[in-house]
């Protein structure tokens, strides 16, 4: 006696072609996941090569660590905080120190040279001006 096939094997409930089985779906999902994984791996590798992090770290180790620290700080939400304002203030003052020092040294040199000239007096001749030039 031949078994009658189940109606759902020929047609689905809505009259369309029969849906693929569960195993086929799982295989398809597995293939898609595998492909996605490969793509992510390739993209990460390309990104790493483009940035060339290893060589940069070898050349500037402290700078790269500081950059990572800064990125983490921003990601942690510390950018718009009072601590950042204070840090920026301190950094600005430290950065302006060499400039101020240069200005002060220039001012002191100008004052010293000015006092040296005033010792000769306003009508005082420069000693070298009395010597006739050799030419």
């Amino acid at each position, binding site marked *: 006696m031949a078994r009658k096939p189940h109606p759902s094997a020929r047609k689905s409930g809505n009259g369309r072609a029969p849906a693929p089985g569960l195993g086929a779906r799982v295989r398809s999902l597995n293939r898609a996941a595998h492909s996605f994984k490969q793509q992510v791996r390739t993209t990460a590798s390309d990104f790493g090569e483009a940035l060339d*992090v290893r060589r940069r770290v*070898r050349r500037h180790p*402290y700078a*790269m660590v500081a950059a*990572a620290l800064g990125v983490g700080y*921003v990601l*942690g939400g510390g950018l718009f905080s009072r601590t950042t304002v204070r840090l920026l203030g301190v950094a600005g003052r430290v950065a302006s120190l060499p400039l101020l020092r240069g200005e002060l040294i220039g001012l002191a040199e100008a004052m010293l040279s000015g006092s040296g000239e005033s010792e000769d007096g306003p009508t005082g001749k420069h000693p070298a001006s009395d010597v006739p030039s050799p030419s």
Partner: protein
Amino acid sequence: MDGQTLQQTLKEQQARLEEGLEEARDELSDLNERVIDVIKRRPGTCLLIALAAGFLIGRMASR
């Protein structure tokens, strides 16, 4: 304490201080080289640790 003795003591102190400073400089230089070596050997780990540390500091600063 006469002037000569004072001068001698000051010279000794200066020599001792210079020696200490030199030692401290050598130790700092050694530490610097070791840190750079670790960063160069494990760049990914170091960067991740720095990133995590920055994240934590940023999180604390934002509160």
